[in-house]
């Protein structure tokens, strides 16, 4: 059951090899913790890689499970955006990770490939403050639309910013 080893799922290795052969430099790193394999990819190639993951015949990933952001609070490449994909056929999951710098927090949207990523990306934008270019409906997901902070950034205080959500006027 539980294991403390870090081994990649066997079903994943052919697709990882294919990705490395096809995208070369854009696959920056492949790491495995427990049985979760995280492929670090470059921001520019994310849409092509995701399209390839969906359309390939070796291990097709038709289900985009989640997209979300992480604030690492590092000076360089502060934000990370993670993607999970599930292969219904091969019963295996792959994680992609894209690093985004704070000075240019933009990355391409994958809504064109997976329509279901629409709200995941809205949530990531809402919580972390990374912007998804060419997103068809780039609104906040949870917070009010005129809210100016990103709550899951590490410099946002746990108790919130006083006065950041104004109360409605008495009528």
């Amino acid at each position: 059951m539980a294991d403390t080893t870090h081994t990649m799922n066997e079903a994943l290795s052919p697709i990882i090899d294919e990705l490395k052969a096809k995208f070369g430099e854009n696959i920056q790193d492949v790491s495995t913790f427990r049985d979760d394999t995280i492929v670090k990819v470059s921001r520019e190639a994310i849409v092509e890689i995701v399209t390839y993951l969906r359309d390939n015949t070796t291990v097709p990933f038709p289900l985009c499970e989640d997209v979300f952001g992480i604030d690492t609070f590092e000076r360089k490449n502060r934000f990370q955006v993670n993607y999970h994909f599930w292969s219904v056929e091969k019963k295996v999951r792959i994680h992609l990770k894209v690093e985004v710098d704070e000075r240019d927090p933009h990355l391409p949207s994958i809504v064109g490939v997976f329509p279901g990523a629409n709200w995941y990306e809205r949530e990531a934008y809402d919580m972390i403050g990374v912007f998804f270019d060419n997103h068809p409906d780039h609104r906040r997901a949870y917070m009010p639309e005129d809210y100016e902070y990103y709550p899951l950034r590490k410099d946002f205080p746990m108790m919130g910013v006083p006065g950041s959500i104004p109360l409605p006027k008495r009528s």
Partner: protein
Amino acid sequence: MKTVGIEAEYNQPISTSDLPPKEKQPQILRALLEQDPYLKFEDPLEHDMVLNMGPSHPATHGVLRLLVRLDGETVISVVPEVGYLHRGYEKIAENETYHEFITHTDRLDYLQPLHNNVAYILAVEKLLGLEVPPRAQYLRTLISELARISSHLVAMGVMTMDVGAMTLLLWCFREREKLYDIFDLIAGARFTTSYTRIGGLAQDISDESIAAVKAFIDQFPDRLEEAERLINRNRIFFDRCRGVGVISKEDALAWGFTGPNLRGSGVDHDLRKDRPYLVYDQMDFDVPIETEGDALARYYVRLAELRESIKIVQQCLEKMPKGPIHADDPKKVLPRKEEVYTRMEELIHDFMIVNFGVNPPAGEVYHAVESSKGHLGFYIVSKEGEGHPWRLKIRSPSFCNIQVLPKLIKGHLLSDIVTIIGSIDPVLGEADK
């Protein structure tokens, strides 16, 4: 007709010609108006209307808000909005130890708190590399399935009530009440159970609880048959549900449907079978699938899953071994209270675990379980030497299911909205986190 303020809180339909100018419209209204009109208007000036539904509306299963654009009674486009129950659990998790967050998982999907406890603790244990004894695994499987039954009962009852069958709701809640009494016996609380602990469970199950579970599953199939007799050949129910909210297999996958909703569209995918966790690999059960992809198919999938859950509960009770319910790892697992009071080592461990947390290795893990709504996953990023997660992401199935609503509702009548919401069974506590 009055014009719309910036808050757009109105319960009367408003003709689109009376809306404020574009620059004064809230974003959600603009998103609604900019969607492709699915249908042609007969007479745009008279029939094109905007209607606000929710967030406090009995048929939206909580605090879901829908902004609907209508042509007469036909829905042209709809924009759902969530966030009215946003409590910031992911932020809270970053400031609490792994143990403390268990209580918050009760409040995520409030129809199946026990299952959320299990789902969260499995992710933490995967991060720690901890293996729990067989009895605890069987118990966790048992409570997961009981929680699934109680959640599906609400889904069934509320969906049928939305289409007009009040009786079934009361019958389902009667059965659910029995289950909640059992949860009270097992976990010591009916609703906010917080039953799991890292490396085990809060307490062992008593013989009284086992007898209660047995008594429940013995009588439950008959009650289910009664409900079926009432609904499954009911003309009104069929007419309201058949062909409503249809989604194809490919679309369901592309839009991120999981759980019974995905299986209602004919995709054979269940994490309990495809990537077994706990002791599901030793259980004999089927994954019910329907191919139509409409509201009726999703209802049938849930109905069939209730029977499969009973099978699993029965097998759990039969196969459950005796033995400890806590893993033997004093640095990670909270010691028993009586030992803390009498022994030095245990007192130290208790102090360290409560005050500084369990200190997992640095890494990132994701563990998803098949909840009654779909993939319920927890992604944990941990840093070396810290007792609380650096980032905890809850992959909530309801959030992903709600975003498909515009696709399902378009082109149907206003009254079909409640059928469709009921058939995808969202829980806003989970969608809003």
